[in-house]
Each structure stands twice: as C-alpha cells, then as structure tokens.
C-alpha cells in the first residue's frame, strides 16, 4: 500500500466512523416507540367534579387495565362521595366500600357530590424524594412511576404520599400506584379511567400542547389542587372543588 492510498483510506475510514458513531448516538437518544419523545409532553388530568355521577366505571376499568387486586383496599383510583348536611356535618365514603349496601334516606342534605381521586403526579413528589433506591421516579413527561423490579418494598413512599394514592401490591410485594396508564398514553391512547368515563368528568391531556382539552379545561374553569400547602405541585386539577375535600 503506498502512502497516497493509505491516506485516502484513512480519511475515508475516519469520516465513515464519525458518521456511523453519530448515527449510533442518534439511534440511542431517540425513543423507539413510534417516534415518541417524552421531552415534548407533560401530562396532567382535570377532574370536573360536577360531572362525576359516582358510577365507579373508572375504578373497574383501572383495575382491569392495570392488574390491580379487586378488593376495595387496593386502589389506583377511587371515588369519594361527600354529603354535607344543613348542620355543617360532613360524611365521606368511598363508593367502592359502600357498593351493594342499601342507602338510608338522608334528610337535611345541603349539598352532595362525588370526587374521583388518583395519584396527583406531583411535580414535586415526596414519594420520589424518599425512595431509598430510586425505584420511584418521575419521567420527563411528568408521570411518577414505580420500577417494580427495583422496589425493595420498604413502604416509605406509601407513608410519604399525602394523598393515600399508593399501596403495596400483594402479589409483587412492591409499591403500586396510578401511572396515568403510561403504557397507553405513550401510544397516544387515553388512560383507561378517562376512556370509560360516561360523563367526561376526567379530562386527560398534555399541558405542553395548547390544543389539548386539559389546557382548555384549566383555562375555562377555576382550578384547585389537593393540599396545596404541602407544595407537592399536583398535576391533577379539580374544577369547582368544595373546601371540605382533602
């Protein structure tokens, strides 16, 4: 091989390697799932309290979709029924726990409503802060997830969640909670609870997209979040929420 040929080949090799390396890097950086880029999204949910009729379809759909045990004390989402009497007394119950029980006549009701609850996907999540092994983490698109292969089952996150949104899954022995049906939303589908809600009381959307229903919901309603004083910065937004809701 003469010197000219060597130099020619060397230049070719270096530039080809450079291009190849760049392509590799590019391929690694890009998510594979249909060109989905989490950096372009930030998910949240709106709850239109006045639209919820307490049918419980959302709970059922969630349990089916996410392999949540059917018992009423393992919940990724639940619905609370508030009854406020004229004398100011407040009764709250979870509609699941009350299922099938006859409801007595309740006189002197001032107002009554249903409040769906789920993980608030906090922007400042206490559960992520306390997890000793980093099994609970926040994704770039704003969803708090649990890696069940990493979770050691210490339950510190369950203690740290102000909303009671977490439980220990009796089969996996790891912490479990609402994921906004992450496996669905990255494919452009809606979370199961939103999909089945007959009154559209749950509004799912992307806070980064001006066209999203959620952004419109937060624009046209007066919005409140749960326990704002704890500075967890929830991304589940409630419209027309009563002061009794905690």
């Amino acid at each position, binding site marked *: 091989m003469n010197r000219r040929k060597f130099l020619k080949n060397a230049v070719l090799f270096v530039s080809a390697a450079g291009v190849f390396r760049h392509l590799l890097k590019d391929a690694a950086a890009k998510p594979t799932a249909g060109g989905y880029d989490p950096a372009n999204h930030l998910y949240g949910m709106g709850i239109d309290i006045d639209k919820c009729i307490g049918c419980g379809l959302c709970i059922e759909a969630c349990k089916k979709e996410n392999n949540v*045990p059917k*018992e*009423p*004390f*393992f*919940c990724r989402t*639940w619905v*609370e029924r508030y009854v406020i009497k004229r004398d100011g007394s*407040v*009764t*709250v*119950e*979870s509609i*699941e*726990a009350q299922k099938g029980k006859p409801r007595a006549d309740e006189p002197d009701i001032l107002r009554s409503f249903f409040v769906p*609850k789920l993980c608030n996907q906090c922007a400042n999540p*206490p559960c992520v*802060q*306390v*997890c*000793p*092994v*980093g099994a609970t983490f926040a994704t770039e698109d704003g969803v708090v997830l649990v890696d069940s292969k*990493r*979770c*050691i*089952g*210490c*339950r*510190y996150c*369950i*203690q*740290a*969640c*102000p*909303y*009671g*949104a*977490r*439980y*220990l899954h*009796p*089969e*996996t*022995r*790891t912490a479990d909670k609402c994921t906004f049906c992450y496996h669905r939303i990255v494919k452009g589908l809606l979370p199961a609870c939103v999909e089945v809600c007959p009154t559209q009381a749950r509004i799912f959307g992307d806070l980064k997209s001006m066209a999203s229903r959620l952004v419109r919901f937060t624009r046209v309603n007066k919005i409140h979040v749960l326990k704002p004083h*704890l500075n967890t910065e929830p991304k589940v937004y409630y419209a027309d929420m009563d002061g009794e809701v*905690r």
Partner: protein
Amino acid sequence: MNQELVQRLSELQQEVTGFIYPNEVEIHWSILIVVYPYITGLVAGAFILASLVQVFNVKEVQPTYRLALLTALAFLLIAPLPLQFHLGHPERAFEIFLTPQLGSAMAMFGFVYLWYLMAVLLLEIWFEYRKDMILWSKGEKGPMKWIYRGLSLFSSDISEGAVAFDKKAIKVITVIGIPSAFILHGYVGFIFGSVKANPWWSSVLIPIVFLMSAIVSGIALVIFLYMVITPLRGERIDMRCLDKITSYLFYAVIVDFTLEALDFIHRLYESEESIKILSKLVTGKLFVSLWVIQILLGMIIPLAIMVAVKSLKFDEELRRLLYFTSVILIQLGIFATRWNVVIGGQLFSKSFRGLTTYKMEVAGIEGLFTAIGLLILPFIVLTILLKILPAWETAEVKEGAAS
C-alpha cells in the same frame, strides 16, 4: 394472591371509624418498625453513657464502661434485622448500599450505620480491649488463643507507649462518637420527622425527642444489665456507681419529658388542621399506650421514685429495688414512645376524617413472636460478647488468678 392478607384487611375495614382513604386500611409499618428505633435508641444511649467515662471523666461510672460499649455493639448488630424482615423484597436490601438514592433519608441508613459500626464502636472496643486481648492470647490455649490473636489483629505491642496511644485513641474516637451517636438516632427521628404528609410525625423536634428518649432508654438498659449481671457474678453492686448513673438517668428523663411536653403543647397551641383527628387519636386509640404506659408508668412514676430517692435517705437495699423498678418502667415507657410514634402515626387517615386499627399478627414474619425474638437476640449476642471480652476482668487480674 395472599388470601390471609385480604382476610385480615377485610376485617380491619369493618373497624374503620369515619372516613379513611381506601389504601389506608393496611398499617404499613408494623411492630418490627417499632422495634427498630427502639433498638437503635438503646445503642445510642448506651454509647453516650460510655462516653461519660471517657470524655467527661466521670470516674464513678467506670464499672459500666465496657458493659455499655458491648451492649451498644450487641444491639447495633441486630438493629438492621427488623428492617430486613419487614421489606417486601428482602433480597434486594443491598440496593440501599449499592445504589442509594442520595435524596432519600432512608438511603443514608447504610452510611450512618456502617460509619457508626466501623469507625466508632468497633474501633473504640478494639482499642479498649487490645492490651487485654494480647495478654489473654498469651494465657489461653487452643482456639481461644487464636481467637484473641485474631481479634487483636495480631498486634503484640503492650509497651507503655502503645497503651498510652490506645487511651488517646479511645478519647479521640469517643469525641467523634458522641456526635455520631447523635446522628445515628437523630437520623432515625428524621426519617419520621421529615414526612410532611403526616402531621403526627412531621416536626423538627422529633429527632431531638428521639435522641433524648434514646439516651434515657440506653442508660436505663445498662443499669438493668449491671444490676442483673453483677449479683450473677457473685460481686457486690457498686452503689456509688449506681447512684451516679441513676442521677444521670434522672436528668435525662427530665429533659426528655420537657421536650415531649413542649412538642405536645406546641401542637395544641398551633391547633392546625389535623388537631381534631389527633385529639381523637390520643384520647382514644392511643390512650393506654400514651397516657398510661408512656407518660404515667414510663415517666411520672420513675421520676417520682428518683425524686424520692434523692430527697429521702433510703438504705441500699431499698434504693436498689427502687432503681430496678424505675429502669424497667422506663424501658416499658420508651418502647411505648416508639409504638406511639410509629403505629400512632398510621392510625389516622391523611384525610383527617377517620381512624383505622392495628391488629398485630402473632406468628407471622411481622408478628409478635418475631418482635420478641428480635428483642431477645441482642441479649444473646451480648452474652457471647461478654464471654469473649469480659467486661470486668482485666488481663492482669486473670493472670493473677491463674498463678
């Protein structure tokens, strides 16, 4: 599916009063998590007592110095076990050491624990026993000779200079050890105190209250052990030592009581959103464990006893009896303190609208028997430690006896 768990939770659901979030039916931190801070508290307290001799030169307490160190070690060795048994995936526990999430208070466990074990306790015990271990290895035959040689890390220098260095090293380690003991137990308090979601836990005072109650329980435990072991050895209890330690115990209980009262008054005075449900908690489900066991039996009666001993002239026999009663009551009280924090903090809903119940398992892994076993285990470890490293016989005495 764990049918037994489902059955238990279904029963518990019937016991709920008011409204709780559905996931709150299960009490997540069981009796094992009560045992954990109780045991680490004993470690920290026993070490602080040992430090009195080294740093503050309290000569009267010398007879309990080695006992206190070994007690701290025995309990420290068992301290991680309740946590381990409690995990949903015990086989992944090492992740806390290998890939800690540094923002988590709990992830600091590995660092705090290993620092305290390796850099403080083992080191101090080694320097304290080094000379004796060398001499014992010379006096012993067979495997014990090699155990002592191994334990002394094959050092053989017992010249005056070397022994003086040991003494100096012990002083330095104790000075580092006191803040380390504070960190060890203050950190356990921080795990609870930093949970802003839980108003029963969330308080800056919690680590300090934990620390003071740790000192109280640790000192009381060493007194208990000293009073039990000394007659078993056929020796007389050194009353000067006993009087001195109990007076330290007395001051520690006063400080502990004051801090807890301050915490209580502060909560009552601030009267935040959670006050109604917390009032229900302390007057209902925690009534016996808080007011009767923790405060009356665990604090007020022992304090009254110690005031009586200080102000009236009792003879030695009666003093011993009263001291012994006090330290047992204090242990009971401090265990109740841990119970009230850990279990109490989970009995009310974070919706502040209802209470749940804790029904302790009996035979399960997180049950009563495991807890009792874990509380007995440190005493077995201590017995072995005392066999290998006698707390009262120095090597010279032993040699003298042999010759």
